[in-house]
């Protein structure tokens, strides 16, 4: 267990992280547009560190307690580890299906709708998460590996956070950005969660990142 000071993120570091995410998301959305014609906008991210035990109430506040959402969850690991959660408001699936199927309308003709929704969320989620996390990693000189995406359809916030995600005594670093698909009725939230164990490395990477501007 790292000592207390080493595992706390200062407000300066939060600013740096926010800046890095800004750059990363800008690059990610440019790349998504360039390579695969997916046009998304990401808001300026909110970065904060909270006790892991407070994550459920954090999500309840962000999403709304009664709201039904669909979630794409992926673990990533490189020198720092964490979870990426893409939270879509319900109804986004059918819009996303039309993004994928406009290039090949017969593609999904005979698939059951639920499989279709899951497959589409998985596919688009994986692309968006990979692009965003990948760019952050790139800026911090890291390369990420990812677990296959897991899709949860139509859940309430209470079911978003897996129980075993964090040691409840730990803190979690939350990076939260709102996103929307241009010209589509698709909105959602990209949340990246880092465990406390990653913070030591993260602090080092942040200071190295700043050195190039020193």
């Amino acid at each position: 267990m790292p000592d207390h000071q080493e595992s706390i993120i200062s407000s300066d570091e939060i600013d740096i992280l926010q800046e890095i995410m800004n750059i990363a998301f800008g690059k990610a959305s440019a790349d998504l547009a360039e390579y695969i014609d997916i046009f998304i906008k990401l808001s300026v991210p909110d970065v904060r560190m909270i006790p892991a035990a407070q994550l459920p109430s954090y999500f309840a506040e962000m999403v709304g307690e009664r709201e039904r959402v669909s979630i794409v969850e992926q673990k990533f690991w490189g020198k720092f580890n964490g979870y990426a959660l893409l939270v879509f408001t319900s109804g986004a699936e059918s819009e996303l299906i039309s993004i994928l199927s406009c290039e090949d309308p017969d593609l999904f003709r005979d698939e059951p709708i639920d499989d279709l929704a899951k497959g589409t969320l998985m596919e688009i989620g994986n692309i968006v998460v990979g692009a965003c996390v990948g760019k952050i990693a790139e800026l911090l000189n890291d390369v990420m590996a990812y677990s296959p995406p897991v899709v949860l359809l139509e859940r309430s916030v209470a079911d978003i956070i897996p129980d075993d995600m964090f040691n409840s005594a730990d803190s979690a670093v939350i990076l939260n950005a709102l996103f929307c698909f241009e010209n589509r009725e698709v909105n959602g939230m990209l949340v990246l969660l880092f465990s406390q164990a990653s913070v030591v490395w993260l602090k080092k990477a942040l200071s190295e990142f700043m050195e190039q501007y020193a």
Partner: protein
Amino acid sequence: MIFPQVSDILDIGIVILDRDLKVFTWNRWMERHSGIAAERIIGQPLFDFFPELDNPRFLRSCRCVVGLGNLYFFSQKLHHYLFPFKPVSTLDKRFPFMQQSCNMGPIRDENGAIAYICITVRDVTDIAVYEQRLIEMNMKDGLTGIYNRRFLNTRLREEINRTRRYRNALSLLMFDLDHFKVVNDTYGHLFGDYILQAVTALIGSLIRSTDVLARYGGEEFCCILPETDMNQAAVIAERCRRTVEANLFHSQGIAVHITISMGVAQVVDEIDTPEKLIDQADQALYAAKKGGRNRVVLSGASEVTPVAAD
């Protein structure tokens, strides 16, 4: 020299492509299942051997890997397979091709630049077969082998959603065996069961593979007709009615004629839920019964005048 040996031992397919999508590595698993020797395919464009992969999705995933450094997952559920290989499993013949779960990710050179695309291919046919069997057990009617009511409800909901999305026509047939109780009472339930099986098999042979025939309950059945409007549905219904009427059903030394009554309904603006559609078809069926049985009635219309033989 270690890695090529490992890659040949692994029970998964490994394909490495360069940025021009020419094959760089083709491991033994891929040789075995494709029948294409490594020395024949290495250095050649992948699409020369697998032209079906030259599609927007595969190209997009390649761009994601090369351009974004993404790891890409092809689930069996959505894609079924990337490489069209014969299934190895003798468990079942339901999949004409090996079901595959595939990953695709970047391989970087010493400078960290993405130089290659690595694809791994896992044979998940057995898992897919077991899953299918479970699903089928859950959606088929034990006696007749056609779909059960639970599946009918799910599928009808899906088809109605699809119809709204693509603005296609959708019709529903509902039918009932006339005087089925008399058959049961006269010849016994075993013969009654035979009649249920024989009539559904006969009707199953008259509909298209995209239509969904289900047992609604007792001697009542439904058939979902996707992309079919009321007029087309009426033709199918009338053909079913006439074929059943003309058929002599015989088993256990007993031979009988059976007739069916049918109601037909279609999705229109105000009839846009499974419940409403079933209710419409049910009302039409009731009218067919009341009108003297052995006839087809369209929802909201009068009886179908039987058309002359085909």
